[in-house]
């Protein structure tokens, strides 16, 4: 049961119920779609980049608590950071949830994203915590093809 408590923490549930940066950006520089065919989750990520800095970022979509909270906290975490910093944050996050890396070691601090550290214990849910990240990467790279977790 403690694993479950680790996963569905209050911070995560709060971002699920009241997602931040949720809605389209009219004048986005990059937009990308992501979907998880396994569970039907879909997400669209919008980014504005000026001088190599993510000046604004948002998402919309329908998905589970982990996917939604991740998208919400991710957008908060990368806003105002350079594109390179955002990528480094994703690399670190990815290592934590897929490889079980210690969040306190190597790379940028995860901050609120640390709430997802417990996802690694739920292999079926790791994709929920990485879908919006992959979609953000595609939006930054202006990839026209939808991102899929499969």
């Amino acid at each position, binding site marked *: *049961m403690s*694993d*479950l408590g680790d*996963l*569905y923490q209050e911070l995560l*549930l709060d971002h699920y119920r009241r997602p931040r940066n949720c809605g389209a950006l009219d004048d986005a520089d990059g937009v990308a779609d992501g979907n998880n065919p*396994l*569970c*039907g*989750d*879909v997400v669209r990520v919008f980014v504005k980049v000026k001088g190599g800095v993510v000046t604004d970022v948002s998402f919309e979509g*329908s*998905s*589970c*608590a*982990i996917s939604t909270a991740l998208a919400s906290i991710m957008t908060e975490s990368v806003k105002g950071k350079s594109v390179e910093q955002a990528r480094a944050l994703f690399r670190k996050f990815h290592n934590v949830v897929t490889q079980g890396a210690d969040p306190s070691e190597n790379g940028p601090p995860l901050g609120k994203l640390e709430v997802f550290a417990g996802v690694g214990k*739920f292999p*079926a*849910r790791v994709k*929920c915590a990485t879908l919006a990240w992959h979609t953000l990467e595609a939006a930054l790279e202006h990839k026209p093809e939808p991102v899929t977790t499969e």
Partner: protein
Amino acid sequence: MATTLHSTSGRRTGDVSPIDIERIRRDFPILSTSVNDHPLVYLDNAASAQKPTCVIDALRHYYQSDNANIHRGVHALSIRATQDYEKARGTTQRFLAAARPEEIVFVRSATEAINLVAQTYGRANVHPGDEILISHMEHHSNIVPWQLLCEQSGARLRVIPINDAGELELDAFKELLSDKTRIVAVTHVSNALGTVNPVGEITRIAHERGAAVLIDGAQAAPHLKIDVRNIGCDFYAITGHKVFGPTGIGALYGRLDLLEAMPPYQGGGEMILSVSFEHTEYNHVPHKFEAGTPNIAGAIGLGAALDYVESIGRDAIASYEHELLAYATQALESVPELRIVGTARDKAAVISFVIDGVHPHDAGTILDQHGIAVRTGHHCAQPVMDRFGIPATCRASPALYNTRGEIDALVAGVRRVLEVFR
């Protein structure tokens, strides 16, 4: 939402002897294991059912004592393996009430059975401008093979609508049928909604317009008594692993005259009588459709599984599951935040549901932490999800070995889900 439940077999009698649930549970070793420190409550039978000891033993016996290739060998092992493989064909024939064993083709899965029909009967009989009718509640495996056939043949795929309860709209079906309709392919039991379709009536109506009928029986086989001659269908597809048999084995029933007229599916060994570079003579049915060394152990295991089901009795199973479905439906409906999707009058033991404010994927994870296995997602039936305007559902699909106690555990699990998300 009130749901009236009818007999799933359509031939339930009042004097069916009740099943011995404790004895049945002992037949399935996995049911006494634990998951996440809780006793396993396995309610994902529509995805794949568990295996009784007799099936596991049949597989072991074949590999330990009889393993050899079939049909060609003159030695003892090959003869025994051939006899057991063909015996399984006879068991499958009787299970489906087919007239002759030659009408049973062993395949990998119900999916392969449908692809086989599409690529043989379909390629030979469907032409530009023709139409193929499927329903809105089909599994992707009874959609995509027909889409492929339509691309290849220039035919058009048309879809029979379903109503809000998840029942086929028969009037619309009659209107869609025309002289252009070559094939009608519908499921016997919906994997996402539990609906039992009136396949006999559908077949009769389709035959009046000269269309061939394929019934996808993947979900029906573990729940219902199946009589292909009574249904009158031309093809009927089942898969082994949903009816307590191994994975990688399924069966296609096809009417003998149709099978004989159809071109082969795949070429290779077993399916030929003689081969030269100038001319190849195909084997007789069903071997014409069984190219290559088949899944011998799988077929023998399927035979053992079907024997097991018959030993309990399909009327007894249908009667037991009918009560369990009614109990589960009522218990789940007592949770105000829960809504059942699929409320057909005639249902098999499949219950799809959604919970207010909780994505099915999250509910599935929390239930799993309590040892409860349900399926979450679109159940390979995305058009059904679209029809009901939802991305996914949780699906509890009981089988003959599930109990009221396990349904209670599911409902308690759902209440835990609500507590987490309160």
